[in-house]
């Protein structure tokens, strides 16, 4: 009575196996930052924020914003569901395949990257048991300490980078580097450098040795080495998507960011900022009003909400708050703008710091200049119309020479600018370096006890479905709020 049932219960419209490169490509595409990073990360570091409440409330009011799809769930849901799950699958499918060793090690490097973004955001997270819902039948993964996660990330990056081998079959279909092993090695070492430098407060010795090892291995030196996702109209940049749809008229450049760029006559202001002069509403933010002239740019001051910002806009002699400067969402933050994850600019600035600390050989000033140059050139890679002229780069570097006495502040303030539109990295580096020196958001009625938000809270869903493991994590790490510091972050 069950004749033919085996055949009947095989899905005729889907595959039971797929080239793991295709799922690897998907994992990388999905690593682009979710729109929710505008609510916390970019607002905590005071680059882009909104005066509005509701679903976009967060760092603008220094309050948490939870719920099934709250802003705190953005990275968590996207990375675990759509990145880690695929990478775990790719690693499983390639680990025993002698012809796919390069793919295997590329996936390990990318998993180290994604895991770093996750742990830097939340602290202790499921890591060793993550993504094993199917392969390990584990749907309630335990939380690992951030220390153990970093130790493993360092090991994975070291091993995987070393194991990449251009003489073995390479993966031309890889959407990041087209299977270029040399670039993957540079990415691996640059990530190792980033991971090492993350530990300056908590374990300077390990930070030093790791940075030195990464530098010796060869890191990114040109913008063609950058790790980025070249989004397109079919695979859109989620941050660009948010800034061009429902929240188009809701997010503005902060006054601190605009003022920093303007007072330093930074040529990047013209690439980054756009103001719809005289706009009295979102609908009036039309192309005809668009003005990119750095001299007219005015950032929105922090500390206001939707009720109080109109008066401030009037005081600032603006038509309305829709008249403040925004990130140019027709260029750098357009719908299909590329997402930069790991860049030469960031890497060179980290080298500058390592050199400043005497951990590697080389001139901190040279690395510093190389980092700034790379970022200014990178803006042109993001959108040709945003390119900074070579002469302007030279002029800026001449006007702002490296001063060793202020080295760490200079480097990390530049890192802040260089990580614009990469909220998670700007937020992480701000915490580990304590630069730039930002004035705390003065909004009345904050929920945090300290001056800045120190981490992102876990999604409420974990309390519902993984409570025992979550409680173990919060009991050792500290309460699940915005104040608790992650392991590598010391006051």
């Amino acid at each position, binding site marked *: 009575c069950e004749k*033919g049932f085996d055949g009947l219960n095989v899905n005729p419209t889907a595959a039971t196996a797929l080239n793991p490169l295709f799922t690897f490509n*998907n994992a990388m595409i999905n690593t682009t930052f979710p729109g929710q990073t505008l609510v916390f990360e970019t607002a905590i570091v005071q680059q882009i924020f909104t005066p509005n409440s509701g679903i976009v409330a967060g760092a603008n009011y220094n309050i948490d914003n939870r719920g099934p799809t709250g802003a705190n769930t953005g990275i968590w849901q996207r990375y675990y569901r759509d990145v880690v799950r695929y990478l775990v699958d790719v690693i499983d499918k390639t680990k025993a395949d002698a012809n796919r060793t390069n793919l295997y090690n590329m996936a390990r490097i990318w998993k180290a990257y994604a895991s770093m973004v996750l742990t830097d955001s939340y602290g202790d997270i499921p890591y060793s048991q993550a993504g094993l819902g*199917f392969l390990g039948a584990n749907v309630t993964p335990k939380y690992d300490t951030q220390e153990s996660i970093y130790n493993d990330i360092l090991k994975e990056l070291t091993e995987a980078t070393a194991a990449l081998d251009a003489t073995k079959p390479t993966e031309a279909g890889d*959407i990041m580097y087209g299977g270029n092993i040399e670039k993957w090695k540079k990415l691996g070492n640059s990530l190792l450098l980033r991971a090492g430098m993350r530990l300056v407060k908590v374990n300077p010795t390990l930070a030093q040795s790791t940075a030195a090892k990464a530098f010796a291995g060869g890191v990114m030196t040109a913008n063609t080495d950058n790790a980025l996702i070249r989004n397109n109209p079919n695979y859109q940049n989620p941050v660009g*998507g948010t800034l061009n749809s429902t929240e188009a*008229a809701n997010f503005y450049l902060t006054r601190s960011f605009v003022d920093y760029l303007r007072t330093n006559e930074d040529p990047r202001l013209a690439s980054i900022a756009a103001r719809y002069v005289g706009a009295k509403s979102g609908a009036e933010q039309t192309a005809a009003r668009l003005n990119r002239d750095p001299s007219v740019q005015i950032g929105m001051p922090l500390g206001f909400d939707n009720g109080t910002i109109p008066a401030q806009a009037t005081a600032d002699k603006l038509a309305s708050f829709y008249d403040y400067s925004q990130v140019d969402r027709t260029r750098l933050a357009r719908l299909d703008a590329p997402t930069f994850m790991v860049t030469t600019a960031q890497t060179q600035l980290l080298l500058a710091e390592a050199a400043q600390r005497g951990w590697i050989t080389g001139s901190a000033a040279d690395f510093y200049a190389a980092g700034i140059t790379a970022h200014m050139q990178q803006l042109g890679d993001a959108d040709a119309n945003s390119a900074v002229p070579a002469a302007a780069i030279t002029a800026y570097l001449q006007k702002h020479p490296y001063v060793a006495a202020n080295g760490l502040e200079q480097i990390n303030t530049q890192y802040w600018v260089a990580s614009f539109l990469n909220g998670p990295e700007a937020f992480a580096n701000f915490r580990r370096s304590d630069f730039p020196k930002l004035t705390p958001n003065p909004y009345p009625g904050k929920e945090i006890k300290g001056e800045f938000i120190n981490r992102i809270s876990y999604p409420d869903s974990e309390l519902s479905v993984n409570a025992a493991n979550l409680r173990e994590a919060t009991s050792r790490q500290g309460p699940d709020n915005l104040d608790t510091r992650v392991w590598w972050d010391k006051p």
Partner: protein
Amino acid sequence: QDRRVTGTVVSSKDQQPIAGVSVLIKNTTLGTSTDADGKFTISAPANAVLVFSSIGFLGREVPIGNQTVLTVTLEEGSQNLNEVVVTALGIKKEAKRLGYATANVSSEQITTNRTVNFMNALQGKVAGVNISSLGTGAAGTSKIRIRGQSSFSGQNNPLIVVNGVPIDNTNFGQNNGNTGSDGSVGSRDRNYSDGGDGLSSINPDDIEGMTVLKGGTAAALYGSRAKDGVIMITTKTKGSGQGIGVVYNTNFTTDQPMDFTDYQYEYGQGEYGVRPTAPNPTSGVWSFGEKFNGQTQVLFGGVTVPYEPVRDRIKKFYRTGSTWTNSVSVSSGSDRGGFNLSISNTDNKGITPNNTFNRKTANLGFSYNLSPKLTVTGTINYSNEYNKNPPQIAQQDNSTPTVVYTMSNSMPLDVLEANQINPATGNEYIWSRFQNRTNPYFVLSQKFENIRRDRLLGNLTARYNFTDWLYLQGRVGQDFWSRDQDYNFPTGQASLAAAPAGFVNGAYVQEARRFREINADFLIGLNRTFGKFGIDITAGGNQLYRRSDVNSVLVTDFIVRGLYIPQNGRVKDPTYGLNERKVNSLYGAAELSYNEVLFLNVTARNDWFSTLAPGNRSILYPSVTGSFVFSQAFNNLPGWLNFGKVRAAYAQVGSDGDVAPYSNNLFYSVAANLFPNPSGLGQPVGNITSGTVPNATLKPSRTAESEVGLELKLFNSRVGVDLTYYNKTTSDQIVAAQTSDASGYTNTLINSGKSRNRGVELLLTGSPVRTKDFSWDITVNGSYNETKLLRLLSDTIPNEQIVVGNGIYVGDLRHVVGQPLAQLYTFGYQRDAQGRIVHGGDGLPVRTSTPISFGSALPKYVGGITNSFTYKGINLSFLIDFKLGGKMISGTNLNAFRHGLQKETLVGRGEADNKMVGVGVNERGEANAVRAFVQDYYSVGRSKSLGEQVVYDAGFWKLRQISVGYDFTKMLPSNLFIKGIRLSAVANNVAVLKKWVPNIDPEQFGFSSDNLIGLESTGLPITRSIGFNLNVRF
């Protein structure tokens, strides 16, 4: 040798003829029914016994002897001794033989007070049956629960059987929480209408009768799909009486939206105490502005209008809808058979101004005795439905209910209507900075959805009676439908990102589905008596084959503006899906009777499921029932006891839990678009198709149910009692439990867990007054049901629980071991030992450290009371029904709080700094003194997910139906071509007598989801329908 017998059937009360009485030759299927004058003609063998039965009368058995003309008098009574009930597989049985509870529904109960989806007309009418219509429009889903919800997920709707063959009742719409079953189908892309269910294609005029088989025993012969009971619908297959009969019925109702909003109209639009004065687009939804005092406000980048309350938003936006049904049937009957042919047309104008629904049906039923031994019966039902623009619900984008219920209290609707489209851009005029709160008038004019369904269902049965005690029956039935749906996401809608250069934004989906279910079965029946003993054996087999497939194409961005067709799209994403399943079954039943007072019935069934793991596919399950008609067994019983029966039953039912085919494996697919590598060469992007962890070892779930019951007729049958206690456990349930995202998956298919439903059903009928001119009948039905979760994955984890879904804004629904099913969880207020609310340093309430339970969303008490009065042919009846004991978390009220519409949000307003001090203590236990913005204070439901603010009792008492009718028949001259006229005035959803949730009707749920209950998000207002029904017989 057969001979011709004619006769008349009359009522004992008034000696008036009774039409439509079934006249059967005992132990055969041969028979006829009486015509409008109560007359019948039948050919019968000399020693035959005729069985007379009719709803509302006690049945009788009359031996013909040597008579050729009979006059048969029937006593009134609501559940008669020899009443014939249609049981599983369409087998007709006398009610007294049954060891389990059933309920009959007459066609009048469905057709007089009718609803577009006819099931909704039965709300509150059947003990133990909980029917909910939703706030999703007239053609929306009807949710039916018999004896409560038994499964954690999957489908809990009963099996619908038409003329002995199951039909598909797939529920279309946004089914959050429905997990992967092919029994429920959600929309593909950002479309949140309720596409209705399978029941809505049935024309209530074609229904001859309906039987609800409530318990597992009744359903044992339907197997897996009957674990939640069976609703057996019999459509007409022949006319009553001789000759050609024509019946015309027309029913017209107007449907008015009921407005329960009780908002504050003291402070108007604005935020943090400031009204919109600058020409900015305002929030549109916040009512935390200034006190109304004759000011003006500025809207839409420049329009200045008075700053004043806008009341009656529901009536201003929605219209009065209407439903008009016309049907004509032609039938003929004789003792050799007959036919019934009917056509009908239903036109519904929804309360949403662009929503209409049309249904046309044609139904042909026939039965014919080819020879005294061979009978052929068949039915064909065809329906054509067109649902145009069903409203978007339980969502923000394009949802008119969400916007109408949440917009600011000083937002003039005429300004919204006049400014839908910005003339400068041709796009939606941005009226709110919440851009996915689409201007509802823009939705009406720009968003469309068309759902067209053609459905053909029918079956053919042949039965051969070898002798009067042995027959063989073969039957094949098919339910086939095709459904075409298309809808858009309008170009220019404010929430959409701009398209790449050269294109305009928007999206369009076109979908074509086909569904086919074939059931083929055979049955052998043997029926013998040996002295006082009788034996009735049935054995048979069934094969179910179901295939559904779907072609769908989603396109995003367009080349030509306003042309919504696939080839005009920039990105095209076509998909194809296919589901196939089979269930093979063998079964048998044996009934032993003694002296027609003691009955014992045993059944056994084996199912084989294609969707389950090899080795686990087969399940055998039994049932045993008994009944004892003690009133007929003893002679010395008091005279006031007319009828008494006790019954007991035990049954098991196995099920594949409606798990979707292919749930056993992980599958991959390739995305519609390639992604270029650095050299610009497009590369495939691979997906894992499902977020649910598959399970390769699925085994059947098993429901075991026992019930005992008592039926009594007392005092000349003027009082009737039918009492049932049941206890039902369902184990090895297949459920998709929510998982930690860190597992990479959102759900996992578990095949464990046990729940128990226990309850009591009571049906009381009484006729307090019965005189020649006036009678008063009262029917009370009520049920108590409690569903408790006994076990999940392990026996060791305390308070083990699974999460089955989330509300849109706040709250989740869980099943927790040891607790009633469907616990609503959300964060509560943190309170000190004295119960005072703790406030944080920000002056806002502090939430509990974890979400806490606020009780079960399932109602415990469901029932209704019908009173009918008859005075000289005028009939008045009204129904009051209730559902009590469940909780809800109200999303509509959450918005009303955070938007400042609730009256409660007036507390604390009016201070110069727009701040207030919340009543309670701070974290050190001192009185809270921290001032917080009023707006922030009332927004904690959203900003902190502090859902306790909007937990309500979901219960209600409603005056559900009223009808007043008069039968003009006896005023007609007897030689007129019109044989009968009956006119009724009807009203549905007349009034809510008591409810606990403010601003909405407690049944106004936006989700059509099968399981995600108690998490309310804004649905369409419930309508009050008033109209008439006219029935003319020719």
